[in-house]
């Protein structure tokens, strides 16, 4: 079996945010504009959370990239009344836009607040729409969306592997965020493949999860800093 997972090295991450823009470019995420952003409706499937620690001059900044944790026990899944979100056999927390009726219950129930809602239909001022990724749907108004672990890239890689009659190789699939990360802080791969880099990282003693105590069993692993 395959279980897609991601390891994020917080000691490498510098919080530059390249991943967030890469995600916008790859996944046709709409930019909502100043007015809507002021109402808290900006969408960043991948966001860099910034926390301050301490008092000046001993103040420290911590960056925490947060995306959908693709939980093994996702609180968002059971609450959807129409099965628009569910767990796929490959361990992805799927979001089916066409099925979504917009109860927004899943977003309420996400402890990581990583689900984003299309309050209005996206607008792309011409010719910006020429950039849109043809492999990803443009979501209409009233639909929930979130990080998909770049499922279109996973599928494309699996398709290429199938055409070449082989298995998908570790490192062959890179999500948009992990590809662009200047610090190479993001590693994507199959957690069920003991040989994969992400599984290797998952076994290190630096491994930790976000809000571990909720036992959501995230597929995103954070490697904490320090020596």
């Amino acid at each position, binding site marked *: 079996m395959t279980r897609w997972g991601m390891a994020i090295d917080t000691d490498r991450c510098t919080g530059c945010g390249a991943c967030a823009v890469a995600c916008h470019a790859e996944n046709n995420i709409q930019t909502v504009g100043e007015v*809507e952003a002021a*109402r*808290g*409706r900006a969408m960043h499937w991948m*966001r860099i*959370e*910034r*926390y301050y620690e301490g008092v000046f001059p001993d103040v420290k900044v911590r960056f*925490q990239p*947060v995306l959908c944790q693709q939980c093994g026990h996702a*609180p968002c899944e*059971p*609450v*959807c*009344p*129409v*099965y628009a979100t569910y767990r796929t056999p490959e361990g992805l927390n799927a979001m089916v836009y066409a*099925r*979504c*009726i*917009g*109860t*927004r*219950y899943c*977003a*309420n*129930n996400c*402890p*990581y*607040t990583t689900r*984003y*809602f*299309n*309050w*209005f*239909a996206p607008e792309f001022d011409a010719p910006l729409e020429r950039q849109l990724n043809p492999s990803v749907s443009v979501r*209409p*108004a*009233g*639909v*929930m969306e979130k990080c998909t672990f770049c499922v279109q890239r996973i599928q494309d890689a699996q398709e290429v592997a199938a055409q070449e009659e082989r298995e998908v190789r570790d490192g062959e699939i890179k999500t948009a965020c992990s590809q662009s990360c200047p610090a190479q802080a993001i590693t994507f791969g199959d957690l069920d493949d003991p040989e994969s880099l992400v599984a290797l990282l998952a076994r290190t003693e630096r491994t930790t999860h*976000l*809000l571990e105590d*909720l036992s959501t069993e995230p597929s995103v692993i954070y490697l904490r800093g320090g020596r």
Partner: protein
Amino acid sequence: MSGPAASIHEEALVRPLSGFRPKLFFGSLVTGLLVAVLFYSWGYQIVNDIGVAGINRPVFWGFYIVNFVFWIGISHAGTLISAILRVTQAEWRRPVTRCAEAITTFALMIGGLFPLIHLGRPWIFWYMIPLPNERGIWPNFRSPLMWDVLAITTYLMGSILYLLLPMIPDFAIIRDKRLREYPKGLKTLFFRVAALGWRGTPQQWFSLEAGIKAMAVVIIPVAVSVHTIVSWDFAMAIQPMWHSTIFGPYFVVGAIYSGVAVLMVAMYLLRKGLGIHEYLSDKVFNNLGLMFLAFAMLWSYFTFAEHLTVWYGNEHAERAVFDGRITGEFSGFFWTMIIVNTVIPLLILPWPKGRKPLGTAIVGLGVLVGMWIERYLIVVGTLSTPRLEYTQGFYTPSWVEIGILVGSVGLFGFLYFAFLQLAPIVSLWEVREGEHLTHRAFAAEQALRAGREGASHG
């Protein structure tokens, strides 16, 4: 010529059913305008997308769900209360049941509207209905929202039938009256149809009463389940101060509390507006006032227990929500709620003088506001303080949401005014039955006394 129990007071009950009544007309007009506001706002939202509402991230639910919970809570006014009273055979229930059950039915209809209003894509709401389809997909029965759909459908169906069933004999009474007075009137035809050809034979009465009794027994657990399930919408989510085992009973108590409150207000208005003091007497207010007091205490107890555990547990995320209520952003709301829901009722209701109609109505109005605030605190208070503090948000309702809230109140009033013109607001036959029972009891007592006297003399 008048029957033994068809007292002169019945005229006040039957009067609104015919002719032009300025008060009712004016009331319908005003509330009708508010209904227009409701549908304009909703239509505007459908055409321009859900984004015109003030909800945002992370406060994905706002006024609509607050209103939903509020109205579903209100709906516990009638069916549950009247069922409890019927099952316990409280005699003073007779003038109360009808107007309470009507509240239930209308509040449920409005409450049931809100999940639809709050959908992002309401035009495909039927994805929630288990219709066999070629897509191979099915509603997710794990979702508390699906439980809601089922529970509210059940409760609404039950409530409508529970309201209509006892109305059949009353429609028949009015039909019989009107057939003589205005045999050709349109309204007469309405009552003929509504009475379903009720004749009032002993078998019919027997079946009807048996049916009502059975439904009263069924409807009580349904009502409890409805608000429990509404509470589970929240309690099943792992959000701070939602994920609480106490939520089921807490919501049920809150629902009945707000239900009694709205009943007090409605009864006060009916008594004043229709002049039916003989039916909605001080005694009724006093008795319901006692029930009101009981629920005020129960609700306050639950509220205290809910907050005490959070405070004592001191879990960070929960504590953030708690602090927001007690001292933070929402403290104004919270303390207003405590004043109108706990302080004022507990100051006024224990005293017999406080349980006069005006007193209970004032308390009721306050509790209505307070219970709305309670739901606001639960929905918005928690959502705006998520576990990852970075994503903390805020919420300001838009005119659309306010329009829909005001409009929903208007719709309730409008339906109620319409109801007043279509059915007697106090169950005629039940009151008559009560008087018969009194007479019978009196006669039996007389006979007994007579017998004893005879015996002692003999």
